[in-house]
């Protein structure tokens, strides 16, 4: 560990542009991320770009989460996984990330180091490099410990065109794993409900999973189901495709703990956030091959078919386990626990 930085907490002087800032950046960030260029901009080259018809994919996202560390991950892991997933669900091979940190005065440097270490580990696992970044320090109360913005660049091979408006009548909807773990974990980890569980966030990068499916079958459309849960992603897709999507409640992969948390609080798991969950559509004749390819990857072990696209009004409906049917609409604002 670098000797230059002796402070235990970040102070405003670490944002002042002087020696303290340089020490913080070097000791906490660049010594770990090891960007190749010491210039202000990353200079990038990949063989994937040489293919005729290949496209660049570019995305950006900001990450704020309370608490910043939770069972199954931390804000750094989410910042890497979330941006990698935004690239991956479009069929891009994720290559490079940026990471910009807004740090609240008083934040423990040890916490920053843990976050940076988990970003590095997750980036290595996902096969991406964190090539550029930035830090700003703001006064106490102007941020909540640390906020991270990460942008990502990847390359989409010439023969891939994954988009929601290409979903066809009869296509099969597949998810890669259990739903709602992240949302339920965060609710429990905030500690104000005194719910105990062994739940862990599903936070995971899905680049390898997408590569595996795309090599096996043509994927028509794919979205990751983050904020707003699977219900919001499916509603967006139904709208874009101009088709209705019918889910079958009995096939939804849900852990008992997640179901229980939702029962207690009056929440619906379809709207709980995920950080390592995607839903994709393939033609029905490709469903088995897609499932097999997904299940061959760690993050797709619990892959399951959850529904189908059908001609009809663009909306999401669900056949309930009980034998009825209901509409699964977009969430309005935030899900709030009910009174009684």
């Amino acid at each position: 560990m670098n000797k230059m930085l002796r402070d235990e907490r970040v102070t405003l002087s670490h944002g002042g542009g002087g020696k303290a800032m340089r020490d913080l950046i070097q000791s906490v960030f660049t010594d770990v991320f090891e960007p190749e260029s010491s210039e202000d901009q990353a200079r990038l080259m990949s063989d994937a770009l040489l293919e005729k018809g290949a496209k660049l994919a570019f995305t950006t996202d900001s990450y704020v989460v309370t608490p910043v560390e939770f069972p199954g991950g931390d804000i750094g892991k989410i910042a890497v996984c979330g941006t990698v997933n935004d690239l991956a669900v479009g069929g891009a091979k994720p290559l490079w990330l940026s990471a910009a940190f807004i740090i609240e005065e008083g934040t423990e440097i040890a916490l920053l180091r843990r976050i940076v270490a988990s970003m590095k580990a997750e980036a290595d696992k996902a096969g991406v490099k964190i090539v550029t970044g930035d830090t700003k320090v703001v006064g106490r109360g102007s941020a909540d410990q640390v906020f991270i913005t990460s942008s990502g660049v990847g390359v989409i091979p010439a023969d891939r065109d994954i988009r929601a408006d290409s979903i066809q009548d009869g296509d099969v909807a597949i998810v890669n794993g259990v739903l709602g773990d992240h949302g339920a974990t965060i609710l429990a980890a905030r500690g104000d409900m005194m719910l105990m569980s062994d739940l862990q966030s599903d936070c995971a990068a899905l680049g390898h999973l997408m590569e595996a499916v795309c090599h096996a079958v043509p994927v028509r459309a794919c979205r990751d189901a983050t904020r707003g849960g699977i219900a919001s992603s499916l509603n967006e897709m139904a709208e874009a495709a101009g088709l209705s999507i019918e889910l079958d409640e009995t096939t939804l992969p849900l852990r008992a703990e997640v179901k229980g948390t939702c029962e207690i609080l009056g929440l619906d798991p379809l709207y709980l956030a995920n950080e390592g969950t995607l839903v994709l559509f393939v033609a029905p004749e490709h469903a088995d091959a897609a499932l097999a390819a997904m299940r061959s990857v760690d993050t797709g072990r619990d892959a399951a078919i959850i529904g189908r696209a059908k001609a009809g009004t663009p909306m999401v409906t669900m056949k309930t386990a009980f034998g009825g049917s209901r509409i699964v609409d977009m969430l309005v604002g935030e899900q709030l626990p009910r009174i009684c």
Partner: protein
Amino acid sequence: MRYVEEFRDPQAAKALLSKIEKVTAEIGATKEKPIHIMEICGGHTHAIFRYGLDRLTPEGIEFIHGPGCPVCVLPMSRVDECVQIAEKDNVIFTTFGDAMRVPGTRKSLLQAKADGADIRMVYSPLDALELARRNPDKEVVFFGLGFETTTPSTALSIQQAAREGLPNFSVFCNHITVPEPIKVLLDDPYMVLDGFVGPGHVSMVIGIHPYDFIAQDYGKPIVVAGFEPLDLLQSVLMVLEQIRDGRAEVENQYARIVPEHGNPVSIAAMADVYQRRPSFEWRGLGEIDSSGLRIRDQYKAFDAEEKFGIGYAAGQRSVQEPDGCECGAVMTGRIKPTACPKFGNGCTPEMPLGALMVSSEGACAAYWQYGGRRAVEAAE
């Protein structure tokens, strides 16, 4: 999930549904001449739509969605007073989550929070007590809201605050009671109701006898029901059987939870802490005699109405409901949510105009969430 899925078993549902069909036919109820059953409680409304029970039951049964959604019937003037308290310096205002979005005349609590008021979501009044202990230099106010289900826990928190001598804890009491508005509905000259499904969690506290008047004075059947889909189907069947047999009784379908005489500890705590107000305003229904509770003088140190000089002046405080809003007619069963000219047309869960669109347990919000676009299309 044990103890939950047993009550959602599709096979058992089929058996109940076929009995319901048989009895509906025996009564001679049809789509044109239906039996009107009111589920009083918003939790039941929510469950009916969530499990599609309205579409599984025969056309001869029509569900009328009652006033048992505490968030929906909260008058706008009281939301304004919440905001007024919450915006005072040095106040931490605590509330259940789903009260955050209820519109006041100026703003909702969610908007007041965005404007800088210290408003926190809690899951129990005990969380508010803990906040008061930890913040002795702040005034911590709990927004007491709900029927007999939540009323006892607020009472217990006030008793606890009194025992501890916590001077910085108070309750803004808006607790209301279930039986009184039912009487108002039954006295309505347009009333079409043939029977009731009663809220199980309320009876867990007060027992089943506060509903005796429904059977004895008005000759209507009522079945106190649980909240799982099989509970609801069985309760509907019990109501129908009473109608077929010409009986009017108070029956208890939820006996696994509901004792005939309720919970004596809760009843004693409520009697100790609260007294009835002469009347209280219900959004969509107006002032209803003896339907609200206030904190007794003995505990006035913990009464936010006293502490912040707010009080409650019955009858002089009604805020005009928005033009065209038909919540009152929906709640009394005169029209369906979709028949309201504002439904989906200026009144949606994003921007609720009327009471019943506010909470997910309100009839209009449930119609919208679980059948919204379909309902609007059907109406067109």
